[in-house]
């Protein structure tokens, strides 16, 4: 399904998207994710396809707002039956069937305030599916979830959505949810700046804004020193890095590099120069290191659970980055290298960040 919506209020937006399966609309807070969803549902004035200009109640969408908005005066099964017509008995049996498919049959006679956040979401999903929508719209489904059960809840929600066969557009600023999607669309500056499978998008963000959205924390200016086969060698504040450029880059080209903290390993080898450990922090079983080069460039490295962890502040270390994880961008405002496209490089490693 192709979606193209334009709106002026509450912020200017012109978003084009291709929806297949489970599509995550990824953007920072205030980037207009919710507004786009509401415009598609007809709750905000906007122009576009599909269903542009239709009254809300005639649009075949299932909208799950943040917090789910179940009707507090109706029991769970009555919420699900809200969109159904027919006798009470028919509505009840259809609602029970929908609840059963999502593993919620036991909650049918509860009130919404008596069930958990994850259950609320699946009830809201059942309620939305009852009207047989052609598109599901979910707004920040992970925002109100208990961190302990979050992954299970997302898993169950995804299973429910996939089983229903209805395409879903999910607004989220949670990069973890983006990694689970069939397709990720990055929303920034009022438009979709990149869309593709998570592997594609994480492997090759199209510009600096996309890289920032994906949580890539190390973004620095660099200069091309020369070629090494398919790779180019860069100088980044005194650090020597190798990268696979998306296009031909001449010597002395001014670029920016973006490297995910997860892609950096701290080793006394190869790619990179001597750096000083200036700060360290434990993040669960992982550890995050801040390393500064002699020229003042700071790189964050997120080391996996089993990595060596006896580094001391002030230690002189070297970093190594697989070349396919060094993203190159032009230094102009939008940060995209012209005609970069999505030309696959020689990469063999998965483009996704290493699981933390």
């Amino acid at each position, binding site marked *: 399904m192709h979606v193209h919506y334009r709106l002026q209020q509450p912020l200017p937006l012109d978003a084009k998207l291709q929806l297949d399966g489970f599509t995550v609309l990824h953007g920072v807070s205030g980037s207009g994710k919710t507004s786009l969803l509401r415009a598609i549902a007809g709750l905000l004035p906007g122009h576009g396809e599909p269903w542009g200009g239709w*009254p809300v*109640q005639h649009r075949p969408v299932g909208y799950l*707002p943040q917090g789910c908005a179940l009707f507090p005066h109706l029991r769970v099964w009555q919420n699900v039956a809200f969109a159904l017509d027919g006798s009470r008995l028919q509505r009840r049996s259809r609602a029970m069937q929908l609840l059963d498919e999502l593993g919620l049959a036991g909650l049918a006679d509860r009130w919404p305030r008596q069930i958990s956040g994850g259950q609320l979401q699946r009830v809201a999903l059942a309620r939305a599916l*009852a009207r047989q929508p052609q598109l599901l719209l979910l707004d920040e489904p992970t925002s109100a979830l208990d961190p302990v059960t979050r992954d299970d809840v997302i898993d169950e929600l995804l299973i429910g959505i996939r089983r229903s066969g209805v395409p879903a557009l999910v607004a989220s600023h949670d990069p973890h949810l983006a990694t689970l999607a069939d397709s990720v669309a990055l929303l920034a500056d009022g438009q979709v700046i990149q869309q593709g499978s998570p592997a594609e998008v994480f492997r090759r963000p199209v510009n600096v804004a996309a890289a920032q959205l994906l949580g890539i924390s190390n973004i620095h200016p660099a200069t091309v020193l020369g070629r090494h086969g398919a790779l180019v060698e860069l100088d980044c504040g005194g650090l020597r890095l190798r990268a696979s450029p998306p296009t031909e880059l001449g010597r002395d080209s001014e670029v920016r590099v973006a490297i995910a903290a997860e892609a950096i390993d701290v080793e006394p080898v190869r790619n990179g120069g001597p750096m000083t450990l200036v700060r360290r922090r434990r993040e669960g079983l992982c550890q995050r290191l801040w390393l500064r080069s002699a020229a003042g460039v700071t790189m964050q490295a997120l080391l996996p659970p089993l990595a060596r962890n006896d580094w001391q502040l002030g230690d002189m270390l070297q970093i190594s980055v697989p070349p396919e994880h060094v993203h190159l961008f032009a230094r102009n405002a939008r940060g995209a290298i012209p005609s970069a496209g999505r030309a696959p490089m020689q990469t063999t490693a998965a483009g996704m960040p290493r699981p933390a």
Partner: protein
Amino acid sequence: MAKASWVYWIGALALVVLVLPFAGLLVSTPWLRMHFQPGDVAAISVSVLYTLLALIIVVVFGTPLAWWLARCQFRGKVLIDALTLLPLLAPPLAMGLLLAMVFGPYGWLGEPLRRLGLELTNTPQAFVLAQVYGAAPYYIVTARSAFEGVPRELEQMALTLGRGPWQSFWRVTFPLAGLGLASGLALAWVRAMGEFGIVLIVAYFPQGIPVKLWTNLQDSGLDAVYPLLWLFFVVALPLPLALGLLSRRQPVY
């Protein structure tokens, strides 16, 4: 808790003071000598019948206005807010005089209406008119805040689930605002039933309970008001008491 005990004492005192007049009625009623005055029973049927009629008018016209005030935002809404508060703030006697100026036999609206056959002085129509003016502002203010308490998001959800605006109102807005609407109705009932100031000026006849109490007192003295007073409470209080208790109760959901 001990520190706050004086709060309970003050609260208890307030309660005693509030109930005192009713206890006084119980004590001072001359139970054995009590008998109705001529016209007392008629006054009861006038009050009940016309109050019901006034209430229907208040609900039919007041509910859409309350909903509009709760849901619509526009420039100059403050002015509309002020206009709806005016009848609420006007003292009843003053309100009665205003109505007489407009709807009275020589009023600028009353005279043409009279020629059309609608007499709005000392008629049942005038009685209902006075009650409507007395009760409507209370209903509208209460109903408005009841509607404002319904999250807009829930109404929008009803729309996205394929229900039209009318069905959304009946299936979501109305049930969720129901308790507030009920207490608005209770207030309106009490105001209409007990309305004295406006009624006295606009519709001295037909006599409902409040005016009849006043004439009994004038004509025959204090002893003549007891039977009607008791009947007034018996007739007027059950509805608002039931609605009030209902709206005080925590909803089940």
